[in-house]
């Protein structure tokens, strides 16, 4: 029984991870890929960790798994914010089919930071 439940979690997690990986390659711009990581990865890691929690059955295992998931939930958005902000500052292009962009208005007033040039590969 436990193995079956574990298997379900494993399946969800593995699938989410695979999708995230695929998304990294397939999705056309940074923000979409951020979406893929943020969600699929949290879902994927969450699934896999839950599988482990169920499988081990020990309190320690559960605590570790849950703590990891909680931490990831908490910290990933922070990283996302920082990366997105950096991306805007450095002029990372949006996918051409992106619709409205309110953030562009906000940043138009601000000057880009001086170190921006070096961030694009090969420059």
């Amino acid at each position, binding site marked *: 029984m436990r193995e079956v439940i574990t298997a379900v979690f494993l399946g969800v997690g593995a699938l989410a991870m695979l999708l995230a990986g695929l998304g990294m390659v397939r999705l056309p711009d940074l923000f979409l890929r951020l979406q893929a990581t943020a969600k699929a990865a949290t879902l994927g890691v969450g699934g896999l960790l839950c599988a482990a929690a169920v499988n081990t059955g020990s309190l320690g295992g559960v605590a570790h798994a849950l703590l990891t998931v909680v931490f990831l939930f908490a910290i990933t958005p922070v990283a996302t914010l920082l990366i997105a902000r950096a991306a805007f500052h450095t002029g990372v292009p949006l996918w051409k089919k992106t619709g409205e962009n309110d953030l562009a208005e906000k940043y138009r007033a601000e000057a880009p930071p001086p*170190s921006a040039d*070096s961030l694009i*590969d*090969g420059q």
Partner: protein
Amino acid sequence: MALLAILLTGFVTAPLAPLLVRVSRRGASVSLGFVPLGLTVWLASLVPQALSGTPPSFHLPWVPALEVALTLRADGLSLLMALLITGMGTLIVLYAGAYLQENPRLGSFLGWLLCFMASMLGLVLADNALLLFICWELTTVSSFFLIGHDSQKEEARQAALRALMVTALGGQALLLGLLLMGWVAGTLTLSELPTAGPALREGPLALAILLLVLAGAFTKSAQVPFHFWLPSAMAAPTPASAYLHAATMVKAGVYLLARLSPVLGGTPVWQGALVSVGLVTMVGGALLTFAHTDLKQILAYATVSVLGTLVLLLGLGTPGAAQALVVFLTAHALYKGALFLVAGAVDHAVGTRELPLLGGLRKAMPFTAAAAGLAALSMAGLPPLWGFIGKELVYGAAGLAPGGWGLALGATAGFTFLVGSALRVGLLPFFGPPGERGPKAHESSPALWGPPLVLALCAVGLGLVPGWLQPLLEGAARAIAGPGDTPLDLALWHGLTPALGLSAVSLVLGITAYTQRERLRRALVALRLERWGPSRLYTLGVAGLRRCADFLTDQFQSGSLHRYTFLTVAVTAGLLALPLLFRMGIPSGLKRDLHLHEAAVLAILVLATALAVKTRSVLTAIMALSVVGLTESFVYVLLGAPDLALTQVVVQTLTVILFALVFSRFPVKPTGGRSRLQDAALSLAAGGLISWALLHASVLPPQTRLADAYTSRSEPEAHGRNAVNTIIVDFRALDTLGETTVLATASLGVYLLFGPSRRRKPA
């Protein structure tokens, strides 16, 4: 014991000289003169015992581990030399006191002079080859400081270095030679060496020993082609020249050969080398006197010629030659010392030593002139002077040798030019019209004319009473060539011998040369010997050495870290390749099981590494490194090392944070993207070799001894179930202690270089 005291006296009094000079400039040299004088008397008192069957000797172990011992022995030869050294030394010290009266560094000069004297005494009294060598080197060093006494003059500095290098070169060779000799003979005691003579003369190392010893002797005694240092050493103050370069030090090489001739002598190589080098030196040196007009230069070349004669005599190796040698050696010491001192007195009085500027000094400087005249007559080999007797003996010895007529002819040629030079030196400054500087000249203090006069009168006295020194000279000759069948005959008149004829010939020719001196000089100058002579060779050698060193240093110490790293890696790879490629085959039994996920991990590792190397963006490279680090820790997870995985993950993230902190402070303009094929090739070769070695290691049977010990003892003895941790904090805690200190020190360094303490300081 007496010998030791005699040896040490000089060394002990030498440091006192500067102090004494500080007390009294005038009194210093007189009081110091009592040291060599006393030694002379003391040595003279040893003569009877020395000539008996058991010469005075002394033995004290010094460094037994190296067979260095204070073994001293005073046989006839040693005593003759020692008496020359101390006797001359007395006069030179007195003379130097006056000559350098105004010189601010008189004290150090006298000190080095006494040090030299003591070393020279040690050299001739030593019965241990290494003790002899020690003194030999000490004479070299003290002569360096004596030659370079006028250190403000570039000429003096250069001459000192040149003399030092040439003689030290010989010294190194001599050391090797002596060490080989000691090894072959089993002893380094000079008086015991003759018993090992056959082994030394005929063993497989015989030639090497001989050549090394000859190199030492020839450089010290200024034989062609090493002679060039001697004329340039005339930059020394005249008392030093008279003492070192006429009377004593240059004879050290001759003394050494004389001392070793019972051991090494008699072989064809010995004879060939000594005779040919001696002959060339004798004739060449004498001839070259005519190329110069500086009194000291003339005397220096004349000295070279005489040294050649002495070496030639040693090469002949007959008892007669030995007798000629000792006589001629003393004669030369007396007259050449006198002439040098005369040259110094003239220089002191007139301010020049250039013959064209000198003349007519006999009235102003009568005593000096007298000394010069007598010494020159001795040098020219005219009766009844001591020099005449010496010359006759040389002719005799040369003539008696096999192929003697050729040698006699050569000797005649040499003496011809010496006669000419003697006339130039003895006559030109004192006769004829006064030179440019002449009129102002006057005789200086008795200390400047007394010593040369004493030496000159000795030459006369010995000529008139030749038998006075006979026992000692015979003893000395015996030490060289063993007991001869003919006793030493020191008479002025032997009848009409061939030698007398040759003397007459050389006298006549010498006078001719004297009259033709200008023509000769122009001819010699036209040869431009300085352009292709050995002196030039030395200069070229030094320049070549520098260029070679320059090249080497440019190549290896170029300042380019790239080259340093490249060479280091290349050499290491080469070293590693030696055993791997030549002694090991392809490893067999490699494990080939690889799971899919492991393959993926390895692929990520390799790809990320490639990215880190390939990318031009430093920040990308940092991220690639992150992946490498993560993968590494995943490998640890896969292979049962969670402790490592934990530590690696944290460390690698902190590393990335450090990178981020640093590179956030300066915008990185990526450089060094230039890809060099050779760099890549070397890197791959090195990496490949390391893999190769590790593959070989991987097929060895696993070593479980320690692992078992730790896993079984960790819990019961170290109270921990994590074997890695028990190793770290208990079994091998000392490593950890060191390692934490490393980390702390690194942090301290970061703090010192970059932390608040630095910020507070104004830039």
